[in-house]
Structures are given as C-alpha cells and as structure tokens.
C-alpha cells in the first residue's frame, strides 16, 4: 500500500507552510489532538469574542486590564512599553530581594560577610544578587523613560493630571528604594555613597544642623533631620538597620500601594491616552 510508505517532504511545500505560518496550526493540531492532551483537558478553547472577554474579566491577574483597548495603545512606538517594563522590573526585585533576605542580616558585624557568603557559598546567590541590583538600576532608567514618554504624548493633560502626580511620587520612591538599598552591602562604595547623600540632610533649612536658620530651631549634629534619618551623627550600624527596614518594608509597601492606585486610575481615566 502506497500510503503506508514514508512521505518525503517537498522542500518548496515546507517553506511555503513555514512562511504562511500554517505550520504552527498544523503542529498545534498534532499536539491538541494527541491522546495525552485530550485526556488531560476535557475541552478546547473556542476563540469567540465572548471567550476573549472572559479570559480577561474572569482572571484575577489579568482583570487589571480592560477587555478592549484602542489599537494605537498596542503600538510600542506609542508607549515604549516602559510603564509595564518598570512594573516587571519592580516585581523582579521583589522576588530576588526576598531570596536575599533569607541570608542577609542588617547588623554591622554581619552584613558585609553575609554578602560574601551570598556571593561565594549560597547556590545561585551571586546570580540573585546581580539580578536584584541590575533590575533596580534598570528600573530607575525605565521609570525616567516612561515619564519622558508620558510627557511627550501629553498624557498628563486632563483627565490624567492626578495620575501624573502619583507618578511623580512613584519616581521619587523608586529613587529612594534604590538609594536605601545602596547601603546594604555595607562596603566602602555603600557607606560613602550614602554618607555623601545623607550629608545633604545636614543642610536642610531650619531642620539640619548646618542649614540656614538652624540656630533658631536649635538643631545640633546629634539632633536634626539627618540624625533622625540615620540614627546617629555618622553612617553606622543604626543607619544600616534603618535603611534595611525602609528598603525592605516601608518603601516597597508604599510604592506598591501607589502602583495599585496608578493602574486603577489609568482605567478610570479612560485607558491609555489617545487623540481625542
């Protein structure tokens, strides 16, 4: 019987199938028609408008989206995808950060050696640390680009004024998240960068000991906003603990809450902006 002998594929026909994309539906058909597949899943997914809506509306993770969207909002040229990438990078730092927290102790005597331990002894410790740090740095860049895009498309104009304000809080907290994390490795780079940064607080008008008008308030090196921030007059172990709590609990919670409001407002304001 001729039909039983193996067929030699015709190259031209095959190329045609690949180019037209037909090959994918053929492979999909092979897979979803197999006994393993049909015994696992009792019925298929019918690609109807109703199901497309339900995929979004009845999925707890996806229902953040509207079910329909303007065509131009899909264009990468329009959004640069930067808001979404910022969010993804934030999630990456949450996941890798929690893993780092299993090994890291925010104590003057331990912190630096826990970093060494992470790098040299913990399986995938170095990779987790790298991913955490690079995602944090990348997030700073993507949030700036997102902001630039939102400015260039004039998306802060009515009715989105308030979401822009929330965005400015978000970019501020993104920088503060990154800055508080910078101290935690407790190496020379960390300590001195944070010293340079927090020294600025000394010069706060009225509230810093070297700031203008401090003499009227009675601010001293051990009793001013900088001392409040770092728990002393130099960047030492109390500063490490304070920055750790701010970095791992306080700021992520606030930034997370603001992101929820940010996303909610995007939808309430009528979705991604577009020409009216």
């Amino acid at each position: 019987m001729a039909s039983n002998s193996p067929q030699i594929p015709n190259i031209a026909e095959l190329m045609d199938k690949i180019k037209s994309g037909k090959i994918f539906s053929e492979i999909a058909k092979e897979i979803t028609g197999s006994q393993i597949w049909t015994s696992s899943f009792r019925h298929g997914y019918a690609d109807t408008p109703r199901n497309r809506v339900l995929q979004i509306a009845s999925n707890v993770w996806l229902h953040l989206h509207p079910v329909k969207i303007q065509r131009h909002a899909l264009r990468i040229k329009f959004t640069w995808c930067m808001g979404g990438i910022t969010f993804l990078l934030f999630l990456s730092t949450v996941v890798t950060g929690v893993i780092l927290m299993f090994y890291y102790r925010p104590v003057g005597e331990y912190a630096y050696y826990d970093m060494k331990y992470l790098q040299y002894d913990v399986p995938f410790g170095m990779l987790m640390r790298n991913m955490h740090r690079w995602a944090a740095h990348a997030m700073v860049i993507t949030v700036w680009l997102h902001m630039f895009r939102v400015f260039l498309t004039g998306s802060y104009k009515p009715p989105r004024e308030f979401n822009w304000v929330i965005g400015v809080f978000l970019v501020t907290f993104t920088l503060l998240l990154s800055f508080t994390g910078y101290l935690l490795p407790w190496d020379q780079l960390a300590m001195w960068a944070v010293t340079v940064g927090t020294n600025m607080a000394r010069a706060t008008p009225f509230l810093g000991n070297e700031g203008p008008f401090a003499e009227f308030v009675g601010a001293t090196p051990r009793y001013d906003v900088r001392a409040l921030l770092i728990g002393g007059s130099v960047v030492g172990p109390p500063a490490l603990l304070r920055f750790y709590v701010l970095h791992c609990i306080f700021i992520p919670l606030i930034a997370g809450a603001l992101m929820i409001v940010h996303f909610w407002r995007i939808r309430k304001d009528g979705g991604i902006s577009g020409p009216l």
Partner: protein
Amino acid sequence: MAQMAAAPKKKVEGLGGEKLHVWPYLVRLEFLCALLVIIALTVWSIVIDAPLEEAANPTKTPNPSKAPWYFLGLQDILVYFDPWFAGVVAPVLIIVGLMLIPYLDVNPKGNGYYTYHERKTAIWVYSFGFLVLWIALIIMGVFLRGPGWNLFMPWQYWDPHKVVALVNVDLPYAFGVRTYNGAMLFGGAVIIGYFAVGTAIYFFMERKALKSVGFLRMFLKIELFLIMMGIVIKIVLRLGFNIKYVWVTPWFNI
C-alpha cells in the same frame, strides 16, 4: 433604556476609533516583552557581577566619594551651590515642580499623541531639564569627575594631587563693592531684580493670556522657569567668570 443611553457621555470615553480585544492582542505582547526583559536581565546578571568593595571603613574616605549615579546631577550642582540649595531645596523644587506640570500647562493641544509643533515650549523646557540638567550632568558626574571632584577628560590620569587655583570671587566684589553690607544689598538687588524683571517681562509678553490662564498659574510657571534658568546662569557665571556667590548674607549664600 433609550433615554438613559442618550445622556451625554463623558469626553474621556468618547475616544472613538477601533478597539481590539486585550486577549490575545495585548496579553501576548506583554508576554513577549516580559520574556525579552527577563532574558536580558538574566544574561546581564550572568555576565556582569554587582560590585562589592572592601568592608565599610569609616576611617578611610575614598576620593572621590560619589553618591549613587542617579543622584550625581544633584551632586554636581553642589559645585555651584551650597548644600542647602543643591541637596535639599533643588530636589524639593524638582519634585513639586514636576507635580505641578499638569496644572500649569493648560495648553489643550497635544493630549494623547506625539506633537512638537503644537507645544514647542513645553517640550523644550522639559527636554532641557531632563536631558541636559539631569542626564548630561549624571554622565559628567560618572565619567568626568575625579579626585577632589575635579574635571578629568576620559584620557587623563585621575591625579589625586591635581591643584586647581581657586580664584573665585563674589559677584558684588567683581563689581567693585567692597563693604560687607554693601555686598549684601548689591547681591540681594541682583537676585530679586532677576526674578522681578523676568516675571515682569513674562507677564508683559503674555498679557493676553492672563485672563484665560490666571495669575497664580502664570506666576508659578515663570518662577519655576526662572529658578531653573538661574541654575544655568550660575553655572555659566562660575565656569566663565569665576563667580563664587551672587548674594552673601549672614544666614545663607546663593
């Protein structure tokens, strides 16, 4: 039902145009994008290790001591301004100023699409602030600032003993004012005069807009702009004319 539907819709919802299902069109795009970002992040993290220097040592100050890179624009402004301005007032003004943008820019055009011609000033001001005063200063801070916060070209050796003659004088001194009180008055007059004249010119040129835009909006807009330009002017005065302060008072110097 028909009557209810006739109620005027809010303008927000009247976007018109074609709408597509989020599933599959947006979700698959997000998925692809996420995949690419995660792959890039993983490869980056495998190839390049995060830095870890020697243990923190409060007795050993590195030279130069740099803030994290994203704050180096502000650290660079420290060359030209005292810390109370560069480190505290300037960041606060940046944050507040950014938050005010939607309330100050009342141009209804260019809402939701890219356009340069319909909002030239807005785009120029924002791009100048972001690309020059923020990004360019960061790049300079990361690559060109060496020991003593001196400027070094990329091919120059970072000599920690480089001596830069400090020949800076205060602006009143450069104009021949020699007494302390005289200098204080002179400096105050220059600063207040700068803001007064700038504001007056702006209000005169935009006098027709006053009614529709409102006094407070126009006032805040021009003051924020004058502060931003004031930073640029101070940088030029220092680099070009070796001016240290414009206004010296017993409480603060500008």
